[in-house]
């Protein structure tokens, strides 16, 4: 097995995903020896344009970003989107909700013309994404799983079942019982139900499963005296770029 060359790239985001890679702690040294990291701004100075696998963090929000992601698309054999911003557009999409001009006005006032910004999009709007390690931040073990799978030549196992499954395996009390709302029933698992583990409702940072039962979710909300608006506020945090089809 020859070592795959890996590049880690950051677009608009908080750097948390790359940090989660550095947070691998016990496994970091194994990672460094299992692959050749040829490009990783957050950790190394050297860089190269010769890589097989691109791990991409962040969403595309500038014209310059579009050029860069397209270049990565030309070079990399496999592209892995890492984190909510890259996979679904994440929090950055909130900007779209306000409209570009209004957002620029609010932050930069009369100096707004100096700013290069376009509508926020996840990277798969520009390049073919092979795998996604979702979440904000992504589960670092899932990142390892994706990398390891790519080394071994297998398909990473990324669940398509809802967070409730993991939540129950962890023996949590459902937060609805505690009077909170939760997007767990329609959000893709893989985070080990981190938020419910901490007695907080899931905010849907990993995106929606393939076949969500949206109508049932509405019924549940009604049952607990809540409205769709309540949950949309949460839903929009990470999924403003995606519209749920109302089935």
């Amino acid at each position: 097995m020859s070592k795959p060359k890996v590049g880690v790239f950051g677009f608009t985001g908080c750097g948390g995903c790359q940090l989660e890679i550095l947070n691998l702690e016990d496994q970091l040294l194994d990672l460094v020896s299992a692959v050749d990291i040829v490009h990783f701004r957050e950790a190394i100075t050297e860089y190269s344009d010769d890589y097989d696998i691109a791990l991409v963090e962040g969403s595309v929000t500038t014209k310059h970003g579009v050029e860069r992601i397209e270049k990565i698309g030309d070079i990399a054999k496999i592209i892995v989107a890492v984190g909510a911003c890259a996979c679904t557009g994440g929090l950055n999409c909130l900007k779209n909700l306000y409209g570009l001009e209004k957002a620029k006005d609010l932050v930069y006032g009369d100096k707004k013309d100096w700013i290069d910004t376009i509508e926020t999009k996840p990277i798969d709007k520009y390049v073919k994404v092979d795998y996604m390690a979702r979440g904000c931040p992504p589960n670092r073990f899932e990142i390892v799983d994706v990398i390891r799978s790519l080394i071994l030549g297998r398909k990473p196992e990324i669940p398509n079942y809802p967070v409730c499954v993991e939540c129950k395996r962890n023996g949590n009390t459902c937060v609805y019982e505690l009077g909170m709302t939760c997007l767990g029933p329609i959000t893709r698992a893989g985070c080990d139900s981190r938020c419910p583990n901490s007695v907080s409702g899931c905010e849907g940072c990993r995106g929606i499963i393939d076949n969500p039962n949206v109508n049932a979710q509405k019924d549940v909300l009604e049952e607990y005296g809540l409205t769709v608006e309540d949950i949309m506020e949460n839903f929009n945090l990470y999924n403003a770029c995606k519209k749920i089809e109302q089935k």
Partner: protein
Amino acid sequence: MANTFSIEEENVSRVEGHGDLVLDVKNKKIEKLQFRIPESPRFFEAMLVGRKWDTPSHITSRICGICSVAHTYASIKATEAAMGINNINDQILKLRKLIFHHECVQSNVLHVYFLAAPDFFGVGSAISLVDSHPEVVNIALRVKKMANDMVRIIGGRAVHPIRTVVGGFTKLPTIQEMHQMKEMLQAAYPDLENSLEVLKTLDIPDFERETEYISISDPVDYALYDGNIKSTDGWEIDDQDYLDKINEKVVKHSTGKHSWASRDAYLVGALARFNNNYDQLSDNAKQYAEELGLKPLNYNPFMNNIAQFVEIVHSVDDSIKLIDELLEEGLDEDKAIVDVKPKAGRGVGVVEAPRGLLIHDYTYDDEGKVEKANLIIPTNQNYANIEKDLEEMVPQIIDKSEDEIKLACEMLIRAYDPCISCSTHFLNVKLVNK
């Protein structure tokens, strides 16, 4: 020897750049010096408008993965101030201070060992350090893991904590976890001692420029979570009144805004905290500072790395103290969170992020939705000061080779710890002789 040259990042628009330096020298005179941040603007101030009071802390946490705890708390404190919540109990406060310490440690470790150390050892990156100085890498990984685990236990995860919410915590650590944390902290001492020996051998550039240092300050604690805003220029104000002193402007060459207070620029971060709050450091931390030749007031920006290390020592000491107190008082799940009733009002939250003063300022409407938000982030505050330092330093070393000048500039900027992304990659600058 170069009398006339320009240093400019290659193809700013194509290579990803979070920060870069434009330096144009003609006949030993600086024609143009700009430190710029072409980072994609993220519009957090706009994103916050209209959000319900319990979401800003989750949103602003995503401004920066490395200072997510600091943003979370600047936000929470702003909201709590706006809602008039003044009954945050001791247990919550102590846990907040505890988690704060360890974000600071997480970040300082990363900065001292992974970003600055490779420079001092003359290797290209932390990955090269694995081969050249494995012992240093192992220490760093261990201390970092300790800090990460602390944040995980208290906050629910190492980046973007979950349990930290307006009013308190959604869940407390267990007694068993408290003991576990204490053990982890105690186990860190040998690594700190070994680090001290390594750090003593470093050759720290001798450059000083007198400037203003601003941080928060508290009579008892080495302030990270709470305090007044204090300056080495002799003023101290209540955090809610930050606008009386701190000013911001948009500059054309950068998406980061520039700030000033009593003079044209000021510095925030570990060294500012050290200079303002030396007295509140633990004895052990003072001892380490002395051995490393760091005394207040220190005007050498390169010493920021040393101040960061001294802070790690203090954080470990103070955390053990906090845990002992919490264990003595016993943890009470019923007091994990206080009630919050949304109301209209304005509130300011000021904390120390690892890289310096961080201010969130929110105005809420009657329904508890954000009407207006203003965020002042540490990296931005330092830009102006970085430019001033470079303006002074470059002429002093102008006779050295271009590579040496370049490296010195990079190291200086890195010493400020602007943010990890800019502090490493910034280095790929291209030199064009004119």
